[in-house]
Structures are given as C-alpha cells and as structure tokens.
C-alpha cells in the first residue's frame, strides 16, 4: 500500500522490476508449457473459468521472463483501430498514434487480449498475421506493415461457458494458439493459494473456506452460471482479515455476487452456515 508509484500515471509498457513478483502457485505444467511457447514465441490461449488465476498466471510469467505486459480487456465495441492505432489531430497536422497491440509488437512486449470472445470477429481477424510464421501487423491506414519485435508474444484468454455459445471463437482463430487449460486448483493447493494471497494467518479458517467453496462449486449447472472462484475465496479471506465475521465475509464474497435465485442463495448460505456458523 505504501508503493509511491501507486496513483501515478506510467506508460503501459514497463518491464517488471525483479523485486515484486506476483504471487502464483503452479497448478500443473502450465509454467513449463508457457516457457516452451515463449522460447518459440508461439501465441498462447489461456482457457478456464472466471477467477481461476489466468490473469495472475500471465502476470507471474511476465515477471519471471522479465517481459513487459500490455493488457487489453476486450468488449463488444472494441474496433480494430482501438487495437492497432489511429490518426489524431495535433495542431495543424495529423499524428499517428499506435494502439496497444502495435506498441507491443514494436517494442517486444507480451500483449494480452483478455476475454477475447467479447470482441467482434472482424476485430479478432487483425491478429491473424501476428499469430503465424509471418509475425506481422498490417497498419492498413498507413499502408504499412510492422514486423513484430523478436520478443513480442500474443496471449489471449477465453472462458468457455454458458455465455459463449453464440460467441465462440472461430475455429480458424482458435487453432493458431497453444492452449493452456486452467481449472480451479485442487483442495490442498487452493488452501495454499488462499492463505498466500490473502495473508490469512488462521489455517482453520482457510481450510473451512476452501471446503465451503468446493461444496458450492457442486451447484454449478443448477442455476449458478459461474462457480465460486478461487478469487472469491481470496476476497472472503481478505474480508475476514479485515475483521469481518467469517459468516458475513463468506456471504458477501461467495453468495451475493453469484446469484439472485432465492433457493440457491439459501443453499449457499446453508453451506456457509454449516462451515462457519454457530453450527461449526
């Protein structure tokens, strides 16, 4: 919290300092896969449910590899010029300003397109030439072509779920990537993650939290669109750290954000009550 750089503008492309590596515990072989992909500069696709650690993993890898990371959160109205760049008026003349993707390609950063399915398909097509052997980014408006920096790497994330039935990535886009599959970590690992992330000093609370989270995940496909994520568990642990009663903290982080369905709320509350209430 005492970081003097907080709240100060800085350039999006910044090489991470060696000192502050983000907290990440590997689930499986994802670190090895990513390193291999990196060594060949192959584009990577991170798949997995919300809050299972995709973004954190990438931050961790960027820091491990000492690479700057540029993140673009994709949305419906994202146009290709938002990614590539556009001309701006400055005084009497027009000035070209690179978009985040172009800058990353020029300066050799990892460009991360988060939730790429949300972007329109015509937008995602501009990344095609960057993802194969050409490693080029066409700047149509300038009639120019950028050959990507040797250290440039493209990473997208993708959450295969309920909402994406109509919005799936085109197969031609998908198959250009190396896929890394994420899921919620197993129990023991999740405990270590929650404890490490929140700094919670009470192992018994963490243990209950993780147990309750796993129970709640069982209700997925029964009205819960998103299962209780590891992130939600970390939030709950942090609320508890901040002095909130365990039941309230768990409810606030793990129940109410997830569903409005009264029966589901009741069931989730019951699970929490059983772990943290007077009952336990």
């Amino acid at each position, binding site marked *: 919290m005492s970081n003097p750089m907080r709240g100060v503008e800085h350039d999006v492309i910044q090489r991470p300092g060696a000192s502050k590596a983000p907290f990440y515990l590997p689930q499986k072989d994802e670190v090895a896969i990513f390193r291999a992909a990196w060594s060949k500069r192959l584009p990577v696709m991170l798949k997995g449910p919300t809050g299972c650690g995709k973004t954190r993993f990438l931050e961790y890898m960027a820091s491990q590899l000492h690479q700057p990371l540029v993140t673009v959160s994709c949305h419906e109205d994202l146009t290709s010029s938002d990614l590539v760049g556009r001309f701006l008026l400055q005084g009497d003349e*027009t000035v070209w300003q690179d978009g985040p993707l172009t800058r990353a390609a020029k300066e050799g950063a990892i460009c991360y397109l988060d939730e790429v399915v949300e972007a329109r398909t015509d937008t995602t097509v501009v990344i095609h030439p960057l993802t194969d052997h050409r490693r080029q980014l066409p700047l149509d408006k300038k009639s120019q072509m950028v050959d990507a920096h040797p250290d440039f790497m493209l990473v997208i994330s993708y959450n295969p779920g309920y909402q994406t039935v109509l919005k799936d990535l085109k197969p031609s886009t998908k198959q250009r990537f190396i896929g890394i599959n994420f899921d919620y970590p197993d129990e023991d690992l999740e405990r270590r993650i929650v404890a490490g992330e929140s700094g919670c000093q009470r192992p018994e609370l963490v243990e209950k939290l993780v147990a309750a989270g796993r129970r709640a995940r069982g209700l997925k*496909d029964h009205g819960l669109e998103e299962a209780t994520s590891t992130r939600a568990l970390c939030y709950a642990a942090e609320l508890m750290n901040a002095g909130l009663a365990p039941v309230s903290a768990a409810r606030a982080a793990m129940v109410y954000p997830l569903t409005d369905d009264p*029966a589901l709320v009741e069931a989730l509350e019951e699970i929490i009550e*059983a*772990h943290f209430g007077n*009952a*336990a």
Partner: protein
Amino acid sequence: MANGENEALVEIEEVLQHLEAISFVAQRDAREALPALDGEDAQTRLLWLQAARDLFFHDREAGKAFMRATPELYARWPDVRRWTAQALVFTRWVNSWRALEGFLEQAGEVYAQHGGAAEQAWYDIGMRWCERSVEDARAYFGTDYAKLSDGEGIAGIEALMAPAEMLAKEARLTLETYLPGALIARSVVGTPGLGPWARRGVDLMQTGRSRGEAYFRLENAEGVRHLLDELPGYRPRRHSRFLQLLLLAWFDEEIPLADSDWRPGRGRPAMECDGRTIFMPAVLDDRDEAVVAALHTAGHLRYDTYASREIEALFVVSDTEHPSLDEDQRITWRPLFAPYAERMFRFQVLFDLCEDLRVDARLCADVPGYATRLRRLLARAETPEGEPGIFFSFAREQYERLLRGDALDSRLQGLLAGEARLLDAFQAGQALFADEGFPDIAIEARSEAYLPGHGLNTGHAVYPRRTYAEIHDAPHADAYAEHRQTKEKQQGETPPQTPEQRQNDPDSDINVPPENTSGSGGRVGVGIPMPTKDVHTRGASREAGEGVLPYPEWDYREQRYLHEWAKVIERPVTDGKPKRAANILEDHAGALKRLRAALELQRPSRMAPLRRQPEGDELDIEATIGYVVDKRAGLSPEGRIYRRRAVQQRDTAVLLLADMSTSIMARHPSGEGKVIDRIRSGLILFSEALSSLGDAYAICGFASKYHDNVNYYVLKDFAEAGGAEINARIAGVSGRLASRMGAAIRHSIKRFDEVDARHRLLLLLSDGRPADYDDGGDPRYLNEDTRMAMKEAADAGVHPFCITLDPRGGQYLPTIFGPGHYTVLDRVDELPARLPEIYLRLRR
C-alpha cells in the same frame, strides 16, 4: 301408595309373561336387567319395562340393546325415567336400533361427564339427524362424544355439525361420509376453517359426486392437499429445490425428492427412502428438522443402508436365503422381520435406531454443522408419553452421548466404528431386542418412538443400490450400465397413455398396438428392449416418397454412418386448441408481464446508436475526427461519419426443438397436472416473447417410432408470424412415442437454410436421453448419434444448446453437447418463465 306399588309389581309380572310368550330371549334379558334397577320404585321399573317391551316390539334388536345397556347406563345416570323417555323416541323410525345402540352406549358417560343439559343438547342434535336418516344418526351416536366436541362441549359439536347440515341439505352428503374426514380436518384447520373446507367440497360435489365424496373422505389428493396447505410447520416441498441443492452440495449426488403419502392422522411425519428417491411429508416441524431429515435420509444412501450387498448380508445372517424381490425388482424387508411375528414393530424401531446411530455418527464427522443442528433438535424435542417414550428416551440418551463424545451403551458402541455396516446395526438391534426393558409397541404408536428428523428406514421396498465404494471404484463402463438400469426402471413408472390421448393422436395412422404406446413409452421413450441386430434387419418399410426425408445416422459400433437410415416425415399441425391457449396466456399473465418488462429493458440497448453509418441523424464525433484526419493525411476515407439510432439487427435466428415423446405425458411431481402442461406454457411464452423481440424463430417438435418413422412437427415456421394461431397449435401438442434426437437435429439444421442470419441457435428442449424403440436397449447408440448430429450442427454454423428437465442430465449431456452447452432445469414449474430467459441470455 303401597297399593299403587303392588299394582305396578303385578303389571311388571304381566309384562314379563307377555314377553315370554313372544320371545324367550327378551324375557330373559329383561329379567337379567331388572335387578340393576332394584333401587327404583316399582312404577319406575314398570315404566322401564314397558319401554323395553315397546322397543322390542318395534324392533327386536332395539329392545335387546336397551335391556343389555341398562345396568351400565343406570350406574352412571340414575334418572331412569329420563333416559327411558329419550330411548323410547327411537321407536318413531324403522331400523333405528343402530342409532339407539350408540346412544345407549354413550348416554351414561356423557351425562356423568358433562351433565344433564349437555346430554340433552347432544341427544337433540342426534334426533334431528334421525329425522333425516337413521344411518346419519347412527354415525353421529356412534362417534365418541369427546371426539365430536373436541373439548369445546356442545358448542364444539354444533360447530362440527353445522357444515354437515348444510351439506345434507345442499348435497345430500351422509354424515357417515362427512364425520371421519371432518374430525381430521378440524384437527388441522380448526373450527373456523371447517366451513370453507366444506364449501369447497360442495363445489367439488357439483362436478361429480364420487369426486366430492372422496374429497370428504380424504381419499383423493384434492381433499388431502387442501388440508395440508393449512398445516402449520415447514413445507419441504416448497423448499425442495433448496433441499436438493443442499444434498447435491454435501453428497455430490442428485437424489430425486418426491412427496410421501403421509397425511394428517397418520402419526408423526418423517422422510422416507426407497433406495433411490427421498419421500418428503407435506410438513415437518421446522427448517432445522427438514434439513436434518434430508441430510440424514441421504446419509442412509451415502453410507449404504440401501446397498444390495449390505442387505443381502442381513438375509444370510437371518437364514433367509435370498432377498425377496417384488414385481418392480425391489428388495422387500418383510422376511427379515417376519420371525419377530407380533413383536415385529418393536424390533423394527430398535433396528432403525441402531442404523440411524451408525449413519449419524458418520454424518457428524463428514458434514459440518450436522451435529449442532441435531443437538438443537434434541434439546427442543418433547418425549412422547407411553411406550414410544421409552424408546425415544433411550434413543435421546444415546444421541446425547454421541454428540458429547461419550461412550454409548455397550451394545451400540461398535456402530461408531468407521467400518461398521448395516449388518452391525442389525445385530445391535437384535441385542436390544433381547432387552425386555423395551415394551411392545403398536403400529399406530410407532412413529412417535423416533427422534425428530428421523423415521422409518425400512418402510419402503428398496431399489437395490451398489455400495458407495462399488460406485466410486468401478470402471466407467459399469457406471454407465447402472445408469441405464435405473433409466429402464424409470420407464415403468410413467403412467400409461389414456385411451383418450390415443384417440386424439394424429398419428393413429401409424397403427401402433396400444400396449406399445402405453407400457413401454417410458420416461425417455425406450421401447421393449430388442436385440441390437434388429436395427439392421429392419429395412425401410416406407417408400421414400414425398415428405419423407432420409438422413444418415452414426453407428458407433461400426464407426461409420448408416446411409439414409433415419427417415424424417414432416407432419403439419392443424388441430389447434385456441381455448386452451387463451387459458395458458391468462394463467401466465403475470409471468408474461414480467417478461415483457424485461424485453423493454433490453430495448434501449437494442436501440443503441449505430456508429460509423453512411447516413444518420447526428455526427459520430469519433468517426468524424477520424475522417478529417484521414483526409488531411492524404487518404480518401469512406464517409461513414454518422450515428443513427435504430433497432439493431441482432441477426439471430433460433429454432426451438421440443422432445415430444411419451415421457412428457408423465404426471407433474406435485401431482397437479402433467409435465406437458408446463411445456405447452413454456413454448407459448417463448413464442410471445420472441415475436415481440423480432428475432427470427421457429418452433418444432419431434417424436419417433423406429428409425424410418421420425415425425417432425412444425408448430411455427421461420416465415410465419407468431400469434393466436401459433399458440393454439402449441396448446394442442401432446407427447407420444420415443425420441430419436439425431434425426430431428439433422432435419432442424436443414430448416435453417430458409433463414439468413449470422447467429443460428438450435435450442433443444428435452426431458431425457435420446432413445427409440429400435435402439436395442443400447442407450449409447443414440447418444453417440446425437453427439455426431451436434458436431454436424456446429460445422454447419448452428450453435446447439440443450435445456433438459431431466435432473440426471448432468450425467450424459456433457458428453453429447459438451460442457457449457446445456442447462438442467431442476423444476419443471420454472420452465415457462425460464425458457425465454435462457434464450435472452444466450443471445446477449
């Protein structure tokens, strides 16, 4: 005076001799009864004797009953003249002895307990009923005064009888029919609720006499349901989704919940289980009890109380060789209890207690919070009186020790071990049985002997289960086989099609033998299992003519497509039910209103400004700047610089494909209506929502019988406009035959050719896995074919999504549709509201 006394004595003798001349029995009974009245003067005795004679002459049985009842009656109520006069009135009606018997039996007690005035009033009410019919009066006098008054004296009786008089006048309902049900009803709804309860019955009477009478006798669901609605307490059914989610969370198993046949007057309510389904009573005391009961009952499933291997062990030990199976292939417990003969219930309660302890010990360890809840329940529980109390107290004591962590009774200690089995509980039960400290217990009192949240474990015949270890260690293939078995059994539970449905069946031209459509339609429509080879020998019996469209089918065993194997026949739907459609719209007016409101909310975003348009009302600033900049930079940009507010074409086309196999004709779990009713409502609401949304949509249904007869019904084509006619068609659908999904899906893909839309969504509404009469009992065959059809859909740019009503859908849908491409609707009641909602979410 003495003279009169003597004359009376002489007359008594004369009457007796007269009686003797007519009937020896009458004379004998009179002589036997007379000494009881020795304390009375001769005139009174004469009066009594004359009354006895008159009654006897009126009706031999009446006279005999009067004389035989005298000693008892006199002992309680010495005013002979008064009750004699009352009894004599019965001579006004033929065959009145049946009512008189009841009167004589109770009059003394009523007088002694409640006094003369109360007796007179009670008697007067009875007389009014005698005027109507002796049978009614018999029912009245034959019912215990205490029951009639319910502690409120004559006022209580009058309140109870007032609706009866109304019913007698308006509906000619006999008291015999009314009273037993009314007594139970009053215990539930209270005296003020009786009037409305009876009124409702009168209304039902008008629709059919037998239906009305069954209502009053509490013999049909209507009668019981009305009462159950009034019962105080926690209603598990209203919270069944919550309970189901809870069981899913703790036990990772989807356990079906159903209503039990418990009703008021049948002891303490509790949950029961048949090894597959948990049966919930209409009410339980409170939420705590319901949660404990649900977890406990599911605990029996989890810890193998109903595993066939464990139950077999009991049969081996009891020297009964094989578990006896009933016609549904369920194991019956009875032979295990038979050796205990009339002490059977005593053993049953003790055995259940031991097994409950074993299961609860494990639950306390495995389910957090269970122990605390149990403790709370025990602290609140009141020990019942009498014999059940002895069992109850013993159980409570053991449970308290269990929860404190103290040692149990030495006979029960072994049950706490992790490896304790059902057999150990059985043997512990036998050890307790040998303890004569436990009294015999009657079946009526049995339910009182259980702790709250607990009840009979062995009340139902059991569908044999595999043990937890067997299920979880078994290779995948076996799990599959078991799943199939349960599926096949479920088919038997589907109620057969009624003849009326068959008459309305537009497919009668197929000429299906009735036993095929009825018995075997089944939950998913699987037919009588046939040898698999049948699929191949059965050729296309129908010439591929007009309207018959052949499609290939995937055979996983040969890993190839069977060329033109499935024949789809499009059938027009003409006979609509406009009235029913109007009723459905009316019933769901509220839901429709909410839906329309939700659509309105969607609208502003849909009227979202379209950016970078070649023409429009205002400038798109960003585009304009881009344009100016490009121009300055020497480019020749396109003039797309306007913003326009317009209905944004989402460009989505959806085809809703409904499975219309026999299984949807099943009764709704609540007993009210059928599943098809909800499906009809769902489709109509979907149509209403979609037509106001403006998306291209079609609604189709399918039902199949054999591979060469897949019926495809187009309820609404893409080109048609929604509205009353479409709704009427939907209202007319019914379920029949089986579900060959693959062929129907392939045909649906083809139908998308008509529309030009970027997003094409195929919504499949189903209630079970695909099946057909000729799948040879191999569910995998059509599963695999459906999976292939799904792949073909994806290749054709159609996005499939499945909505299933089958709570077990999670077991097979991921392999067919892929994770994230299906959703399970736990409660069919939600379908009408959820169906449009799911679509809106998908198209977002």
